[in-house]
């Protein structure tokens, strides 16, 4: 309890429970088999629920998992059983919204895989080794988006501040859409 809030893993699975991107921060699942088994049980326990408007929550095996679905993507954030559920939910919301911003609201499996680099960077910017780095979706997306994937090689020549400004603009536009 005295410890810092910690995230055990963040999972992004597809509608069949297959991995799109996952990141584990804890040694609770040392092997690939253990990880897959956990993902499978999380998926089967949640797939019938409706977590599309509000984030849902489930507790099993002394883990708390909060989750939210959109299209064919399932977002999960796992914490220990004495973790503050609302912190987990905030992290989930940050991840969920940041992905929404980065994929310009085209959030589905295909787009996610096409922009897997963005998703992975996004995970990297949210949690570092279990410690929450940032929960504000626009800041997360801002940090990720300053690298232009869409061939905008010019970005590298811009100064970082300029790049950040263009990225913010992009985001603002996608938000307005």
């Amino acid at each position: 309890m005295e410890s810092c809030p910690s995230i055990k893993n963040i999972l992004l699975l597809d509608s069949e429970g297959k991995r799109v991107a996952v990141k584990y921060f804890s040694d609770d699942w040392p092997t690939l088999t253990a990880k897959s088994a956990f993902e499978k049980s999380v998926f089967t326990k949640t797939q019938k629920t409706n977590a599309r408007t509000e984030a849902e929550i489930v507790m099993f095996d002394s883990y708390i998992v909060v989750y939210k679905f959109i299209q064919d993507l399932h977002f999960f954030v796992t914490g220990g059983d004495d973790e503050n559920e609302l912190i987990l939910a905030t992290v989930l919301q940050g991840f969920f919204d940041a992905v929404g911003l980065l994929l310009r609201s085209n959030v589905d499996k295909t787009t996610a895989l096409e922009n897997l680099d963005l998703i992975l960077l996004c995970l990297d910017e949210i949690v570092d080794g279990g410690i929450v780095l940032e929960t504000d979706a626009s800041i997360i997306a801002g940090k990720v988006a300053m690298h232009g994937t869409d061939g905008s090689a010019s970005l590298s020549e811009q100064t970082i501040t300029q790049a950040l400004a263009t990225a913010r603009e992009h985001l603002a536009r996608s938000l307005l859409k």
Partner: protein
Amino acid sequence: MSQPLIKKDDDRDEEAEYSPFTGIEKGAVLQEARVFNDPQLDPRRCSQVITKLLYLINQGETFTKVEATEVFFAVTKLFQSKDTGLRRMVYLMIKELSPSADEVIIVTSSLMKDMNSKSDMYRANAIRVLCRITDGTLLTQIERYLKQAIVDKNPVVASAALVSGVHLLQTNPEIVKRWSNEVQEAVQSRAALLQFHALALLHQIRQNDRLAVSKLVTSLTRGTVRSPLAQCLLIRYTSQVMRESSVNTQMGDRPFYDYLEGCLRHKAEMVIFEAARAITELSGVSSRELTPAITVLQLFLSSSKPVLRFAAVRTLNKVAMTRPLAVTNCNIDMESLMSDQNRSIATLAITTLLKTGNESSVDRLMKQITNFMSDIADEFKIVVVEAIRSLCLKFPLKYRSLMNFLSNILREEGGFEYKKSIVDSIVILIRDIPDAKESGLFHLCEFIEDCEFTYLSTQILHFLGNEGPKTPDPSKYIRYIYNRVILENATVRASAVSTLAKFGALVDSLKPCIFVLLRRCLFDNDDEVRDRATFYLNMIGSNDSVSETDNDVKEFLFGSLDVPLVNLETNLRSYAQEASEEPFNIASVPKEVKSQPLAEKKAPGKKPAGLGAPPSGPTSPVDAYEKMLSSIPEFTSFGKLFKSSAPTELTEAETEYAVNVVKHIYDGHVVFQFNCTNTIPEQLLENVTVFVDASEAEDFSEVASNPLRSLPYDSPGQTFVAFEKPEGVAAAGKFSNMLKFIVKEVDQATGEADEEGVEDEYQLEDVEVVAADYMLKVGVSNFKNAWESMGPDCEKVDEYGLGVRESLTEAVSAVINILGMQPCEGTEVVPSNSRSHTCLLSGLFIGNVKVLVRLSFGIDGPKQVAMKLAVRSEDEAVSDAIHDIVANG
């Protein structure tokens, strides 16, 4: 026309299934990674290849050592490119590859350059990557930069350094501790998350210094903490400080409580919840302090967000375990949550209601639960079953409707774990509520008629064999048991045969019929069943006039194996491997229980598990103790073990030698069992004894001690010291203890110990034997009946002033603890705000004397508590003794 159009859409849907990684293959991607070595780098192409590599790693693909090294070296080339996007991917890739020490050196200079670059994004990321992969020696080189980064004006850079500090503290605490000035400065930052990270690191640096933590908390609770996350952290630290300080100044005021209460009005739900939870977990929190927390949680119960409802109901559920009355206000909200979409929430709501409900609401609740049970998963059903079990123990008079409920759900579909928990519950109810025995056994009999789980069938048959013969009409169970012999598989048939034999041995009137049935089993087609039948026929039938063989029979049928099963198993294994000519000798099996403390750790606080271990295994800690003690020759003359206490630690956590003590009480003796663990791998302890000084315990004299021959690393062992005391008297005393032993160095490489040892000793904490040690907690199902049937012959009544107490609850629990008796009918819980309370206790005093106690408490304005104590027992002397205990306590 519309038909083909839809078809076209379908086609496109399938097309959409196409992913950029279809058909990806490790070998090919590794080939592609050669572009990293191109003189003219194509950043876009390189990024794509890295993404592919990361995709493979993410999907669980692993690289061989050689492959990983090759990729790593290729990736390092990419530092030449100035492309930001590519650099970010390079950082990710390096973290994923977690390079070895000599590889780290290659990227160190590139990363250090990035750490000092003009771009904040480079700096933040380079810090995180470098700290992730670095080791201690390199850390001293970059320490200077990290200290600077902590106070950097860009919060992202500072956060990166602070978070890395939290990780590095695990491996290189001495270095990170030097940063505390910088971290302190960062705590004052205005950037929200930076403050959170700084606070986390600062607390971890100082966590072993209570005073410093307390100061930190005091100063911050007065100031303004911006981020909700930092606020949550501060709440956790505050409640930690409160917990630690309350140990010292028992009834002190709570300077921090106001801060927690203030957080209940914070604008972030996260903080409100954290504060509410912290308040409910405060030790000895008063009802007045609890109320505002319960109120906000109650508001959360009707939130539209499932996460919020879940968090609230889970916390309230925990509160209900200890203070059901505090939660009763939420009952209406809870009842509406029983139909919540989210099954976790519904289950928690139900189990909370089961705890807070009073006797009169049980029936109504049961009706609602019955409807609810069919549509939840097995694991939730188990939770409900456990809640019902404890409800039934709380309201024994309601056993009929609760037992009916259990038998109904036992008949429905369900998996093994679920069925097992129901059966366990029924067994526990049979044990604790005598009135429920007959109907419980009957339900179990019905269940095995149609039970698909061999394990449960055999366990129930075993239990029937022990309990059935003691009922008024044992013959009615025979039909159920014999049906198993006809209809079941060999395992169940064999255990049914054993059960029949138990009835035959105990109930003389049934003996002839049992013979007939057992003889039929002689023609069974399984040899185990035939063997058992033959064996039992000979045993029971051999000579029913001689009582001595009769005792032998009973001992064999009902007694338990006097060696630990684990030891027996290892000995049998090695015997089977040796293939020796000699028959196996059970006397050669060591009786010392090696894994005892482990088993204890799992056990505390729990009831003895329903059906317990397999037939010959120990069924409860007390049984296990009794068996172990009776295997030590010096103690066999002490008679029957009356009570064993829970283990008390005699050493601080994390010391060289961990020792705890279990007090075993006999009629005329007390045995201290010292469980010792050696936590130093380099040492072997020999001839371990505990020197007990009983000079402050006049009534006790040492009669025997049983040293522990050797105590290797991490393998717990026991040593015993026995004292004689006046027969049947609740003698109290204080003992000081010294652990004495011969210590030998162990060579880590060979695992062999030195020949020569050195004598050494180690001071342990004192042990006290108090009156409560002579009292066994035994509940009664109906206190009023028991009280009246005991009669007023040996009743002793007196009044006591308990002085100023925090609350009635505190006074009630203090008296219960002094007496060590079992509270009955839930009377240990004091309703909030009440001025008087009656508590009912029952127990068994040494010498097997039943004792019932009725405590009436009253509290007046200045918190003066008065108590009237009425004791009824079977022995006037014992009634007096109880008064003495309270008078001296």
